[in-house]
């Protein structure tokens, strides 16, 4: 079996989620190859090679959005090289790319994957209803099978392989898919560790009451614990905090050593993004809130009382 991975990089650093897919691809396939759109081909070839890819197709995205241009390029390359399956990260660009390939080749997609097995053809595992129900699915369509997988579904491990052989595809005619032009990138300054990488994550939800309570409760506790701070969709939608902080189905998937949910009810949308954390602490007024069904320790109480006490106690410990 030949499996391709759509490789994404942040600058010249291949994303961890890409490396996770390559590691899994090694397990289910004899041949693993990758496709990348961007200008850091050599650095990407080294990283994907070290995780099992033997070949890297490098596409010049021009001024276009990477996912859309890569999608058109992958559709064209797949016709020439016939991979059995193509894996995409469930990311912004990964979703664009898989969608373009799907419509271009008339192949269905499965997304939000969390498991993949090669026994008896590719079986794809996903979770629905906030991760409470597991579903396995298979394609009956002709290949390539198009699969998008959530970050942190697998561990990334090196294969000991050397750099992947670079195949320079150059610029592709992406037509209207390439007509959306990237004018400028804005990086929003982020304090503290990244949400996806922090060993402690403290998130706030509607129960914190108002946007001005976010900093003194959620951020303050996270900083004390040298962790990152996040949010439920409810308070992102309400405009209290930026979208970049959202943990959940539409936001980030986190898997820290400790996840502390403050005033979060635990809608399925949120649970799917954090329920695989090693340890979960929840504080919520409503004792019936679903968050308590996944919490290792739950305090039924007012975050405005419990959190300031918690902050004082931790400060007192130095």
């Amino acid at each position: 079996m030949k499996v391709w991975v759509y490789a994404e990089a942040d600058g010249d650093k291949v994303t961890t989620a890409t490396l996770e897919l390559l590691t899994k691809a090694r397990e289910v396939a004899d041949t693993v190859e990758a496709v990348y759109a961007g200008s850091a081909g050599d650095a990407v070839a080294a990283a994907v090679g070290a995780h099992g890819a033997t070949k890297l197709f490098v596409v010049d995205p021009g001024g276009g959005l990477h996912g859309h241009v890569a999608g058109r390029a992958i559709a064209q390359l797949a016709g020439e090289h016939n991979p059995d399956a193509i894996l995409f990260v469930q990311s912004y660009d990964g979703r664009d790319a898989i969608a373009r390939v799907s419509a271009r080749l008339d192949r269905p997609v499965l997304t939000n994957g969390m498991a993949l097995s090669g026994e008896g053809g590719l079986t794809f595992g996903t979770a629905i209803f906030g991760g409470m129900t597991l579903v396995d699915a298979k394609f009956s369509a002709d290949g390539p099978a198009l699969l998008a997988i959530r970050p942190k579904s697998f561990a990334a491990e090196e294969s000991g392989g050397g750099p992947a052989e670079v195949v320079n595809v150059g610029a592709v005619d992406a037509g209207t898919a390439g007509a959306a032009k990237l004018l400028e990138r804005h990086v929003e300054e982020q304090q503290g560790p990244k949400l996806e990488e922090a060993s402690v994550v403290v998130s706030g939800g509607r129960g914190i009451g108002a946007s001005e309570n976010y900093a003194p409760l959620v951020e303050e506790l996270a900083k004390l614990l040298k962790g990152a701070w996040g949010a439920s969709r409810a308070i992102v939608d309400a405009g209290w905090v930026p979208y970049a902080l959202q943990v959940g189905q539409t936001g980030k998937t986190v898997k820290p050593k400790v996840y502390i949910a403050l005033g979060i009810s635990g809608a399925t949308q949120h649970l799917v993004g954090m329920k695989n954390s090693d340890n979960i602490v929840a504080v919520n007024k409503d004792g019936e809130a679903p968050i308590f069904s996944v919490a290792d320790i739950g305090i039924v109480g007012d975050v405005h009382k419990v959190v300031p006490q918690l902050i004082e106690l931790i400060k007192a410990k130095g």
Partner: protein
Amino acid sequence: MNVVVCVKQIPDPAVPGALEADHTLDRSGKLILDESDSYGVEMALQLVDAAGGGEVTLVSMAPNEEVGGLRTALAMGAAKAILVSDPALGGSDALSTAKVLAKAIERAGEVDLVLAATESSDGYTGTVPAQVAELLDWPAVTFAKKVEVAGGTVKVQRQTEAGYDEVEAPTPAVVSVTAGVVEPRYPSFKGIMAAKSKPVDNVTVADLGLDASQVGWSGARQEITNVAEAPARQAGEKFEDDGTGAEKIVAFLEQLKVV
């Protein structure tokens, strides 16, 4: 300027979801407008206002002739709706859905912009907007948090992992918007009354020139091989806060050597 908004009518997310025997989502209860779509409807109304003319058309699909959610969006101010309703649509996957929506958008006539949510709240495949764009052979920009249209160009601030990108595309284009980018208006009483008489063009799959085999279960070309309950997390402890809640958390964090 004419804007089409793709909207979905979904089972109330506040009610626990269930699967039918054929593994499709149980949609037998009351269906409502997906809250994620209310942002696209609001943005479309604002864009048409800013352009000083034109109208907002809703496009939706459903296996039965459900219109409850559409009436909500019509009451917000959309002018009309195209509803593709056909028993053949049951079991449709994202690509089949995109095929149907793309055909329905073509039926809407002169369109400058198609707006959609980034994903539905019930199925959340998250690929439909870009699939629609590919089928229409249009540019697409997903995850927009700000959208402006002027002189045949749509300017978008697109969410990224690290911040946002400024992106520009010629119209017509498909743009998916994230939740929370605008404040969806509440329908006024007048709007609700007016919505009752706004036109809903009810069409079948055949009306769109699609074959029934391209949609529903046969179009999806996938099978569910197993459905199981996820292993439950080890039941944790829950305490009413009697003033010692914070101490209990500290003790727990100490055990984990986090403090």
